[in-house]
């Protein structure tokens, strides 16, 4: 297998896994909305974080000279992906709607950072809140399943839903 085939193989596998994670995210969101919120929000956010990270890695691996080994071991990526993604693929669609796109990109950057922080290995000292493992704060230990993650409330508002729709399009339309 050549290095290019290796890279494309991983890009294809990352997008496949990202789409699968996204499917579980949507399923859990729907389930939580319809069952009276008995499911904790952390579970759907966990899948959203995993889908986002793998999406960014798939685009990163596509025809760039990135070191594959390094990418496989890194948690970060999504927060630096959204700006280039939105400006690269939405230019024609948002012609004449610069102000609208500015607002969308600003919200996307904020949400992407918050989503990236849901991974337990990201910025653990500064922001210990994550979707998987308990953390300690102000002499209390918090379980993710008992946390509401208010920093991501925006996801349920129109601006957040627009952001999620574009992430979904990025997942659906990617080709290695």
């Amino acid at each position, binding site marked *: 297998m050549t290095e290019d085939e290796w890279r494309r193989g991983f890009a294809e596998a990352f997008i496949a896994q990202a789409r699968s994670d996204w499917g579980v995210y949507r399923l859990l969101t729907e389930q939580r909305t319809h069952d009276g919120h008995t499911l904790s929000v952390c579970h759907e956010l966990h899948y959203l974080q995993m889908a986002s990270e793998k999406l960014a890695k798939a685009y990163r691996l596509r*025809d760039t000279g990135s070191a594959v080994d390094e990418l496989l071991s890194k948690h970060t990526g999504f927060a630096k992906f959204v700006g*280039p993604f939105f400006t*690269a*693929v939405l*230019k024609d669609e948002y012609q004449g709607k610069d102000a609208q*796109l500015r607002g969308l990109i600003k919200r996307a950057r904020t949400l992407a950072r918050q989503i990236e922080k849901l991974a337990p290995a990201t910025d653990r000292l500064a922001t210990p809140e994550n979707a998987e493992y308990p953390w300690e704060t102000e002499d209390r230990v918090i379980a993710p399943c008992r946390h509401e993650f208010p920093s991501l409330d925006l996801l349920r508002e129109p601006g957040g839903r627009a952001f999620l729709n574009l992430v979904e399009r990025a997942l659906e*339309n990617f*080709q*290695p």
Partner: protein
Amino acid sequence: MPLGFGPISSGPIRSVTKDQATHDLAMWHFGVEPDLRQVIRIVADNEDVADEPIKLLEVNAATVATGSVEPYAFAGSASVPFSTVIAEVTPEEFERIKRNEIQLPKGWSLAKSQLFERPHAA
């Protein structure tokens, strides 16, 4: 398949030159990214090859610092009929790149590049 998402090896019919498309893209990015300070076009030795993508290093105060340069590849679109690779860094990261403390991606060099400054009106 919406333009911009697809495989980067193929693209729409080219009605503008790569230089013009790069300029237009950079100016448009300044218009929609208020914290974008500079766009540096990386010019490859084989820049004239049709499939060589437009490569932009964007210095943006709104991005997150990671201590690395992370390029993402996108397909061409109707207005930018060339595949594009974009990486954004913070102003502090860009200073570190210039001091060789952060490495650029393989094949990228500031020695052969084109600088777009933020227009005063943007």
